[in-house]
């Protein structure tokens, strides 16, 4: 069960209104241009929505996980590209929430509160699904670390003020030698490489990050040396459901557009035949199931309960549903689908199955949990309630 509180409903209404005014009217244009446009940050600045995950103590909105999910769903409904900008910035913050000191939080969250954005830099060409296989290094020299290497497919990279970068402090230790660092934009030696042109989410910025003898203060180390992988995994547990939210928004939009089209096509009968009616019903069922799984995972997180498996499940299920429904909507609408916003939804949906851990990696995690030796049974108390 997942009934939103009055406050959450209000936030949802605000997000929906913002999306209708500032996102939907521009989505097609920026998708076509294939570029991120910073107007989004200006439009969102006053609302501090880019600081929705930042604790109030640091000037943020401190939204619960469920509330964040609701906002991202609304953004995904409008444009998964622009929603990716927000989701990726929250993702970068999550690492600091997981492992940051008070000073680091201030360093990282201040820009967010000002309406700026951040990036999470883990992936490298050799380290996609094999996330621990990165080659970038960070060498301690006095009270500094010197970073060398590169990161790829980094969302927001060209526009972020602050970055969480993962690099090897002990290459011999492999995955246990990875550490996480805060790196600020403009640090000498830190540059942006090629900009990626993608099948979808084209209004989000995806770039390569290049590090050549980049000196950062030792105080920018998040947690301890060697804790990088642990921090990254916790961060991704927190952030993965954001992809479920975006997917859900995409799927809901596809259904709504499809229904709108059907109603135009069959104005008198009000309904197409049962074949199509049932397809619409199935879409609605799948969207609702995806929504409830997401909200449930978020409720678990907000209650402080373990939610790692649910995080993987909701990301996988929602993104598969979004891919299926957007594809079906394009098909059902025929040439209308192929020449309308539906085509964008279908292109956008594809990345949801890939980024923040491919659905294959999620299934690996989930199946391992399923196949793990059963936990010792908890004695059932009898007689009580």
């Amino acid at each position, binding site marked *: 069960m997942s009934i939103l509180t009055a406050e959450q409903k209000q936030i949802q209404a605000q997000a929906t209104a913002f999306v209708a005014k500032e996102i939907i009217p521009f989505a097609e244009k920026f998708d076509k241009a294939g570029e991120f446009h910073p107007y989004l940050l200006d439009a969102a600045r006053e609302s501090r929505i880019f600081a929705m995950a930042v604790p109030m103590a640091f000037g943020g909105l401190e939204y619960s996980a469920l509330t964040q999910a609701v906002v991202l769903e609304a953004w995904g409904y409008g444009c998964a590209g622009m929603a990716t900008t927000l989701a990726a910035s929250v993702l970068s913050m999550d690492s600091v929430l997981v492992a940051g000191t008070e000073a680091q939080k201030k360093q990282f969250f201040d820009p967010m509160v000002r309406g700026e954005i951040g990036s999470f830099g883990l992936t490298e060409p050799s380290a996609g699904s*094999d996330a621990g296989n990165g080659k970038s290094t960070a060498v301690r020299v006095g009270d500094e670390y010197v970073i060398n290497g590169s990161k790829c497919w980094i969302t927001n990279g060209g526009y972020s003020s602050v970055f969480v970068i993962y690099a090897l402090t002990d290459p011999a230790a492999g995955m246990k030698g990875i550490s996480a660092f805060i790196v600020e934009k403009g640090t000498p030696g830190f540059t942006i490489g090629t900009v990626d042109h993608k099948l979808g989410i084209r209004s989000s910025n995806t770039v390569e990050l290049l590090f050549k003898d980049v000196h950062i203060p030792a105080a920018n180390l998040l947690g301890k040396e060697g804790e990088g992988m642990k921090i990254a995994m916790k961060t991704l547990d927190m952030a993965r459901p954001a992809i479920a939210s975006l997917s859900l928004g995409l799927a809901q939009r596809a259904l709504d557009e499809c229904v709108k089209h059907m109603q135009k*096509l*069959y104005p008198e009968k009000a309904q197409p035949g049962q074949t199509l009616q049932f397809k619409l019903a199935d879409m609605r069922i799948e969207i609702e199931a995806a929504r409830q799984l997401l909200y449930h995972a978020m409720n678990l997180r907000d209650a402080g309960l373990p939610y790692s498996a649910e995080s993987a499940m909701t990301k996988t299920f929602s993104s598969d549903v979004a891919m299926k429904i957007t594809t079906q909507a394009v*098909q059902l609408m025929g040439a209308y689908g192929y020449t309308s916003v539906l085509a964008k939804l279908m292109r956008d949906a594809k990345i949801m199955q890939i980024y923040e851990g491919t659905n294959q990696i999620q299934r690996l995690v989930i199946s391992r949990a399923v196949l793990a030796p059963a936990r010792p049974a908890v004695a059932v108390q009898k007689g009580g309630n």
Partner: protein
Amino acid sequence: MSILLTEEQQLIGQSARDFAKEYLEPMVLEMDRTGQYPAAVVKQLAAQDFLGLFLAGEYGGAEAGYVSLVEVVENLSRVSAAVASIMVNHALAAYAIQRWGSPEQKKTCLPKLAAGEVLGAFAVFEHGPTPGVGAGALMATKLPEGWALKGTKAFVRNAGVAGAYVVLACTDPAAGAKSLAAFIVNAKASGLTVGAPYETMGLKGCPMADLVFDNVMVTDTAILGGSTDGSAIMTETLALASVAEAAQTVGIGQAAVEHAAAYAKTRIQFGRPIASLQAIQTLLAEVAADCHLARLGLRYAAQLMDDGEPFLVEAAMVKQFLARFGAKMLIDTVQVEGGFGYSETMPLPRLFRDIAGTTLLEAPADYPEKTIAAALLA
């Protein structure tokens, strides 16, 4: 009937592969980027006899049949489904004229279509639930001197570049779709204009636009087969469209699965090629199986056509199968290539955008199921 290709059909398939390599590979990326109609390549299609593949020899056709047609379509689609789309919609117009045209109509039109002097286009869809119904429908009014056409045909492929259109129009407003008739209309006819080109997700290079008829006058000899029973023309030609589009889907899917397999062998993660992971193998295996089954299904339907047998139900089954598994071929192969595969610098995103254009169901979207069920329940 044989489900295996004859030697001739194999040779034709090979010639299409060679053609695609020589003429399509060098231009396909640029065409996808600009959306420019590939006039020079279409000339080459004609030179290769691909534009008159199944037309009779007396009209200058190659008389190679429909299995050959789908072989060519599949093999061209492995490189450019957009060019195949141009060829397919031309073929639909040529098919309708050869099948239902009067001797006079055939003699006038088919040699030019076979030689590629004139490109054909088949215009069936309208901005409504069914052709012949609704406000925008193309209406044909009988006048003493012929017929006056007024209304709009929607989403016409080859619009603007075709020289001859076969269009379905409603001849009796009260009877709606039941009174459809097919007309051959010269692209230069007075009162006929081509709307703004649609921006499509893929298949870029194959033009798509509305045709607007503002009292376009055609003679009595323009009506196909001289009859006003166009519903059979529509149904059968759309069935051929289903089969030919299925060949496009399979060509795209085959190219994608081969690319993804090659990629998986070179992409190292977890210290080994991802091709060694069973999860990846399964994705590839499913796509390969879907491709194979669809190919058999569409080839079977084409063989029925070659044998002069009814093929509507088999065509609908292929359409229905690919509505479920067609787009999935690219959804899953892009998945194999992961973050790299999502980048437009890689080939699969173009194929992803293209394949979606070959599995569209068009309005009404439930016609494959209706066709199959009607046959079952008859």
